[in-house]
């Protein structure tokens, strides 16, 4: 079975993507802001991550020449993530088919895939900057969603937005504890 082992991530990506694409699943995940942001989008990112073994090694080598320490990939990941986290885009993706198509293709390809190609190349400092900024985003947005009296998305209820905020604060705390634990007791592989 050795010859097939490299296929597995792609198979999982295809299966996961097909499940996410099924209308009832899509509808259920987009019915709440919490499910869309904490389940659907992360799973789409995961699909992109799993696709990295589909990129031919020669192409990976060319990309690597332009992707020192994984910085270029990180810039792409962060830019694309910022765009797909805009309340406007979330609203539009639930209301318009074209935007939904763009979301389903670009979130894996511009967030998950470049991240998977870049993460192993990042050194200790780049990883640290990325992780702390990632955690800070959870706290910033979580706080904003918990405290804002008005809704950011026309398609979602205020209670939903506040619940998402609470979950994001909890996730931020868990990530922070995890990284603190790693810093104190763990070992970072930096090369």
């Amino acid at each position: 079975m050795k010859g097939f082992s490299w296929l597995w991530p792609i198979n999982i990506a295809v299966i996961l993507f097909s499940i996410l694409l099924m209308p009832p699943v899509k509808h259920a995940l987009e019915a709440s802001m919490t499910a869309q942001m904490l389940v659907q989008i992360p799973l789409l990112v995961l699909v992109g991550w799993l696709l990295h073994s589909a990129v031919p090694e020669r192409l990976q080598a060319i990309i690597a020449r332009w992707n020192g320490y994984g910085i270029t990939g990180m810039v792409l990941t962060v830019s694309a993530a910022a765009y797909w986290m805009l309340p406007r885009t979330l609203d539009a993706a639930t209301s318009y088919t074209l935007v939904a198509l763009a979301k389903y293709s670009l979130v894996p390809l511009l967030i998950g895939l470049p991240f998977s190609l870049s993460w192993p190349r990042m050194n200790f400092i780049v990883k640290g900057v990325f992780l702390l900024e990632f955690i800070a985003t959870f706290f910033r947005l979580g706080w904003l969603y918990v405290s804002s009296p008005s809704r950011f998305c026309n398609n979602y209820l205020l209670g939903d937005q506040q619940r998402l905020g609470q979950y994001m604060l909890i996730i931020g705390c868990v990530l922070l504890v995890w990284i603190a634990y790693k810093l104190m007791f763990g070992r970072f592989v930096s090369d």
Partner: protein
Amino acid sequence: MTQILRTLLASAVIAAVGVGVLAEGTDHFSAFTTETARRVEIRNHPVQLPNVTLETQTGTRIALAGLRGRWLVIDFIYARCPTLCLALGTDFSRLQTQLAGPIAQSKVTLLSISFDPGFDTPSELTSYLERSNSNGRGWLAARPTDATGLRQLIQRFGLTVIPDTFGGYTHNAAIYIVDPQGRLVDIADLGDPDRVVQMVLSRLQQ
């Protein structure tokens, strides 16, 4: 070229494109939500309203186009609404007082349109106006007479109405300003009736 220079170059290009796309997607960083985007768009390109037939709180049928020739201040409500529509009712009652002059001259009319016509009969609309302390002058409450009309209104005004968990609705509550030609020209937040008064008065003087 070394790898680090190539990386810098590629990162700069991607970051520039990223900022460009973000600028395009947020109307140059002025509109991050659908609601603000809608307002920016309306101010730049006023929207002609559909001619929908409405039934008012007195049971009279009127055409929306029949109200042309005066400024309309419109909000969307449903009479059972326990939250936002109450705030809208309070806002409108203050508008009614502060715009009493232009209202008496038939230059301005306030109009509350129900998006729950199945429930909001003329008598429900009457009691909505009473609860909101209307003094009876220049403030109509009305419901669309058919589903097509309601759909057209929702689409042109850019409303999103979603059922909430308490058997009611959540909707993007705002105050809409329509000019005498029947065009939607501005959208204001609720909770700031003074600003709406300013907006209407300054336009009346133009």
